[in-house]
């Protein structure tokens, strides 16, 4: 399975290493591009003390898998991995990991970025920030 939802903190580097060891054939991939989104302790000028990430069990996993499959159709890739946190998240916790393995670096870079952009626009996740004075839903992802 190329995608995983974690409800507890995960170490993106260890997860990448483990997936690579167990799933990838040594000597066949030349390029590995990865991205980790980590929770910061501020957003739009406010201190954020925690965040709750909600998802739609079933649909979220299905869209993450779908996004991986689409990337594999679009580029010549060897494998993809997406891990996304849900539940209560604290500053410095990894939120999302996308990794792409391919023969050549161009495909790895492009597909890794594609996974992140598609995930942000299509996978059903919703963020609610915990501020010092209460909670607020994050309305949209700004571009970037």
């Amino acid at each position, binding site marked *: 399975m190329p995608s995983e939802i974690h409800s507890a903190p995960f170490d993106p580097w260890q997860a990448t290493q483990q997936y690579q060891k167990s799933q990838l054939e040594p000597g066949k991939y030349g390029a590995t591009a990865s991205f*980790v989104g980590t929770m910061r302790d501020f957003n739009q000028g406010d201190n954020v003390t925690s965040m709750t990430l909600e998802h*739609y069990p079933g649909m979220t996993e*299905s869209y993450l898998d779908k996004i991986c499959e689409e990337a594999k159709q679009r580029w010549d890739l060897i494998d993809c991995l997406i891990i996304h946190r849900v539940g209560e998240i604290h500053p410095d916790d990894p*939120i999302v990991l996308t990794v792409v393995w391919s023969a050549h670096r161009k495909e790895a870079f492009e597909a890794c970025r594609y996974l992140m952009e598609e995930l942000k626009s299509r996978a*059903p996740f919703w963020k*609610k920030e915990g501020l010092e004075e209460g909670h607020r*839903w*994050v309305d949209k*992802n700004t571009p970037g």
Partner: protein
Amino acid sequence: MSITVKFFARLREQVGQAETSLNDVSDVQSAWNQATQNMSMPDNTLCAINMQYVSSDAPVKDGDEVAFFPPVTGGCYAQ
């Protein structure tokens, strides 16, 4: 006919329920109307049938799971 309707995130709080069942539904919009007692649907609401995005005029059939939720905000934080 039995339809499950689910609400997520801010919409769940606004509608005041996470899930309900309906018996007689023609399309996604009518599922919203019945489940919310004709609340107006926020402009940016996303709709899904059986975990696939659909438009609000998509027809609904027996056994379908219809879901409503706000724009998604997954991925990394504070873009």
